[in-house]
């Protein structure tokens, strides 16, 4: 059906012409949790992230970050030496890059020239940043662009995100308000824990299609500037 005929038909079903001006938006007056102290926000974010099945920590130096990664990845580290075992965004933060340099493992920047079948087979860890973290739900928000392949947080069995502490927001509505100021990119992903399903007898299973393990390292944003 022709689009304008369709719209006209709907207007006639509503028994009035289609409004020319935007309808007055609904007033949304919802009680929100009062702003917490920065430390309380960090603790709440990590608590909710862990409840959703992720692992996370606050780090204040490269050596602290390295230590956490060694603990989390354990013997899996042995499988990360050969490229493209670790794939990452092309615009990873200085802190993320320095951490992996210190760890001694190469990050393959994701690009469309990489073979997806090979990546699916060989990549073990995907590394991204995060635009925001949502405290109330323990969620990472990733906006895609030319440097940020969407598959980095999707294809490998493990996903690690570096999140600057000052990017924490209390709730989803705050993030939506900030997103409204930007022109939308092709994908904005909200990630809350690992891939999961309860489709078999309501029995929770982890890692159905996406990553089986997800990690977040929260770090002070000024570390990126110090590492310039």
């Amino acid at each position, binding site marked *: 059906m022709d689009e304008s005929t369709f719209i006209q038909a709907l207007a006639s079903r*509503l028994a009035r012409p289609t409004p020319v001006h935007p309808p007055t938006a609904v007033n949304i007056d919802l009680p929100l949790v009062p702003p917490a102290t920065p430390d309380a926000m960090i603790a709440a974010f990590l608590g909710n992230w862990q409840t959703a099945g992720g692992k996370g920590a606050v780090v204040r130096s490269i050596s602290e970050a390295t230590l956490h990664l060694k603990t989390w990845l354990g013997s899996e580290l042995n499988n990360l030496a050969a490229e493209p075992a670790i794939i990452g965004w092309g615009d990873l933060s200085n802190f993320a890059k320095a951490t992996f340099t210190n760890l001694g493992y190469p990050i393959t920047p994701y690009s469309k020239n990489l073979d997806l079948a090979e990546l699916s087979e060989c990549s073990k860890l995907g590394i991204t940043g995060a635009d925001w973290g949502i405290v109330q739900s323990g969620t990472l928000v990733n906006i895609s662009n030319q440097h940020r392949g969407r598959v980095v947080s999707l294809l490998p069995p493990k996903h690690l995100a570096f999140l600057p502490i000052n990017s924490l927001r209390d709730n989803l509505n705050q993030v939506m308000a900030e997103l409204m100021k930007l022109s939308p990119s092709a994908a904005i992903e909200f990630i809350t824990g690992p891939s999961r399903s309860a489709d078999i007898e309501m029995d929770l299973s982890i890692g*159905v299609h996406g990553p089986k393990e997800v990690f977040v390292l929260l770090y002070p944003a000024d570390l990126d500037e110090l590492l310039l």
Partner: protein
Amino acid sequence: MHKAKRVVQARLSKSLQDHYLRQATRRGTDTLRHNKEKATLDFGNWEKWRTAGEAIRTHVIANLDYYLKQLIEQVHNNGGHVEIASTPAEAVELVRTIIKQHHAQLIIKSKSMVSEEIHLNQALQTIGQKIVETDLGEFIIQLAGEPPSHIIAPALHKNRDQIARLFEPLAGHPLSSATPALTSFAREKLRQTFLAADIGITGCNFAIANTGSIVLVTNEGNGRMVSTLPPIQITLMGMERILPSFRELGVMLNLLGRSATGQRLTSYTSILTPPRQKEDQDGPREFHLIILDHNRSRMLANPELRPALRCIRCGACFNVCPVYRQIGGHAYGSVYAGPIGAVITPILEDDWNNWGHLPYFSSLCGACSEACPVKIPLHGLLIKLRELKVASGCTELAERQVMKGYQHYFSHARRLRRALKWSYYAQRPFIRRGRIVSGPPPLSAWTKCRTLAPVAKTSFMELWPMFESEIE
């Protein structure tokens, strides 16, 4: 009509005799309901959020033409294509045309109730087109050749042994029925399919009018795969699934995750504005949005039925419904089961003969209306639909005669009194231990399964003068 009734009775009988299905339905709905209760209590002020959800969805439906027009313009501006389908057949034909244009061999699909509504899989398989469901539950029921039995847990009725038997022909060897083993097999099998697919078909939890975006709410990550890996994306959308902007989306996502599974947010919420931008490294290069009417505009035209269009397909009404709990989803016979399915199916299908039974799949307890995150008055709508069914003339002769008899006696006091006296004596052969336990048709339809209180010797009308004097 008699044939339709026999079909309904056969479905009901099958469901009622399937002990695993009934047990699984009870267990599944209990879990989902408790999860929801916990998530809403933790959140606090749930009623205020429901009120906001109701206001937003009511506003959208009242301005549906404006927001759809805006959405269509934005999708065009973003470089996408929009197609409108009045009927399921038109929607299927639009999908087939896109497939043909691209000589696509393998189609993958994430969960989409609209695709179930238009029977897309069957239509494509009829012409030899390979289409693979990628949501684990949908994958299971596609292999079983069955429709979903719950809107968010489509394979609720299958146990792990049955699932292992369904997977074994694909694996080519026996499989353990442990959940991690089955999940791992599906991951491996479907990963190859994701990578080889030519077209990805998604549903649409919400479309955002002022950006031309599509929002997918999933837990497994298959929605992300389907909308990221294939070069072409087709999104199927019921025409009412729209929101003005991200502002309203924030509220609706809070309501949807908590109402559906008790999650604050599902594992993945994707706001997609396809196709990919010029310099992007991945994402579909081509995007088609197919907007389906399928008699939704009939609901729109009727202010009494319009609230049904507010639905966000969370399934919360399924999990509190005492009828759904007993019979499961397949007994409804429709794509959409549960209270919301009983409301929308007769209208969508425009067919009282085959679907007129659905508004009676309800005890009218109102639990569904209380559970609905956007306050759809579901039980009130079920009563309205019963009224519409009677007005359509699609009722059985016996029912019409009973109602005529009811009217005949209850419209005259003396006539009613005489009938009650007569009934008191006429019922005697059928009473055992103070209850009516048998009787002639149509009474026998009731007494076959349960008993009935007998007519009292002294009627309420005869007792009333005594009560009246006591009250005075």
